[in-house]
């Protein structure tokens, strides 16, 4: 084994890249859950986003359009979830599972003719001055645009939830939908919006895997990233800024085990590959979660 082959700066830089898909998906789910809806279909929406991203970017030759298509794909899938859970009042846990199973099949079907497609290169930003800084430059400032969009979204969601009136209404709907309804807020409408935002974010996260991290299409390529995103929302105690910490923690474990594999650690690859999942479980156990939104996962029906 040659541990000296692991460059800590490169490790930190790839950590930001590795955590971006989960960060995006988890951020969307955080908003959904703050609105009181538990969407377990993140994995399905992510993988559909990954497939849509490949399709749109190869057809148009533009990676940004690929991301837009992925967001649209995730959004449409989440719309199905919204109709089922908000209009037809189905069980959210079961519907979320159905969404994941459906998304896995749908993405496999959509992506099968794009198995050999190579998505267009997604350029890394070269920010003048900043990216030339020693140490900080390569770690923080030489990534592609989506990494920064992810970070900006975290700040935007934090600002929205804690500093705006609309965010307060959304949280009210999540804490107590009966009370919010009594105050005249459109519970179902607000939840539709939140669910679709979550779907678009999950789609973006999935596309980041298929367009930047891998970059190509393989069936089931998200490999549980959506479920880890769900776990990180719990870990973060439903707070956007803590979400960043959770995503980086997970990204760190992923990158580290990949580097250890490459360095030829004397542990079989399979056991190293398990580590992100085991780490997620450990994190869930060790860190007592914050308080979940009061109406999380409950069905709302305005009876009169």
């Amino acid at each position, binding site marked *: 084994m040659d541990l000296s082959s692991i460059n800590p700066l490169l490790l930190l830089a790839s950590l930001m890249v590795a955590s971006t898909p989960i960060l995006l998906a988890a951020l969307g789910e955080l908003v959904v859950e703050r609105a009181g809806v538990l969407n377990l279909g993140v994995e399905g929406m992510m993988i559909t986003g990954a497939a849509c991203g490949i399709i749109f970017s190869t057809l148009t030759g533009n990676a940004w359009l690929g991301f837009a298509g992925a967001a649209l794909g995730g959004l449409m899938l989440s719309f199905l979830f919204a109709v089922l859970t908000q209009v037809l009042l189905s069980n959210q846990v079961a519907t979320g599972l159905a969404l994941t199973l459906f998304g896995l099949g749908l993405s496999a079907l959509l992506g*099968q003719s794009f198995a050999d497609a190579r998505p267009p290169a997604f350029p890394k930003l070269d920010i003048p001055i900043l990216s030339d800084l020693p140490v900080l430059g390569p770690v923080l400032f030489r990534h592609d645009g989506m990494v920064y969009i992810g970070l900006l979204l975290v700040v935007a969601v934090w600002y929205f939830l804690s500093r705006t009136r609309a965010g307060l209404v959304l949280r009210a709907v999540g804490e107590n939908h009966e009370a919010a309804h009594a105050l005249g807020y459109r519970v179902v409408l607000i939840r539709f919006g939140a669910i679709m935002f979550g779907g678009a974010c999950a789609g973006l996260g999935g596309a980041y895997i298929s367009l930047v991290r891998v970059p190509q299409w393989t069936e089931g390529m998200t490999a549980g990233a959506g479920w880890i995103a769900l*776990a990180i929302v719990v870990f973060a105690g439903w707070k956007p800024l803590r979400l960043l910490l959770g995503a980086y923690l997970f990204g760190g474990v992923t990158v580290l085990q990949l580097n250890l594999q490459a360095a030829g650690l004397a542990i079989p690859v399979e056991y190293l590959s398990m580590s992100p999942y085991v780490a997620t479980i450990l994190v869930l156990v060790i860190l007592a979660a914050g308080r979940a939104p009061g109406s999380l996962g409950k069905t709302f029906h305005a009876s009169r």
Partner: protein
Amino acid sequence: MITLERRPQPSRAWSYLSPLLAVIVTMIVGGLVFAALGKPPVEAIRTIFWDPLFGDFASYFRPQLLVKAAPLILIAIGLSFGFRAGIWNIGAEGQYIMGALFGAGLALAFYPSEARWLVFPLMIVAGTLGGLIWAMIPGLLRVYFRTNEILVSLMLVYVADFLLDAMALGLLRNPDGMGFPGSRNLQQYPAAHNAELIANTGMHWGVIAAFFAVVAAYILLSRHIFGFNVRLAGQSPRAAAFAGVSADKMVLICLGLSGALAGMAGMFEVAGPSGQVLASFNVGYGFTAIIVAFLGRLHPVGILLAGFLMALTYIGGELAQMNLQLPRSAIQLFQGMLLFFLLAVDVMTNFRIRFGRQKVA
């Protein structure tokens, strides 16, 4: 103006009708999807649902029905208890793998024993135990650390999957296999082989276990205090707590039961139809069983029927893959769609549709 009005009591008629309606709607929409793929829709649907049972080569496919349905039913019966009580074990796939690994591991530890009376029963115990242990992890973590059992059980699927890879390449690899991955073939190891009991029927010990599980679950749910407590815990957790039903105990029992049955299913599969510990051993029965459980309305008899229907889509799907070059993922999509439509149609069980504006009382 269309509004939904809650029924005073869930409609019995709709609770029987909605799975049927969901199947029909799925067939129609599925047919449209197949047509969009450029395949003849009616022929595709017939290939999936009719030909395996009554087509030209039905005698070859019919035994497969039992082989494929048994693990689905066995796992779904276990899951149904938890789902009724609001305990979501969605990691049955992992428990299924662990059952197979424990069962096969025990058999291979005894190799080349000829004492079938000893090895085979021990394998069943080991397989059951393997699934049970794997399901107890989310159970105990939920009881002692309040972690979410959905996420933990699902994470453990990936862990089990990698463990399976590691075992197929490492500890359980066939020493006489000339370096190929995979364990010894248990089909060629008489003491451990879960063989067909009656030739050309597909009937093996796992099928018997599945039927037994259906009967036991029916009695447990309708005649035993445990079944009552499960239903109570699901419908009103507060009432259950006042009635002295320990929520923690319920979590452990429901997860343990589903894990044990999933593990048993995995052991029967690895010792029989599959034969080998291989990386490609699991084909998603643990996830499809979730669909089976819901499609069967969490009722043992319903699950029995739903299990056969889903087994049919597996077999018919393979047939359609061969005859019509229908992609495998189309079948996966089809199965996902079925659960979707079921959940959508289910609204009619608890609500009725009112047309026109309601008068203000």
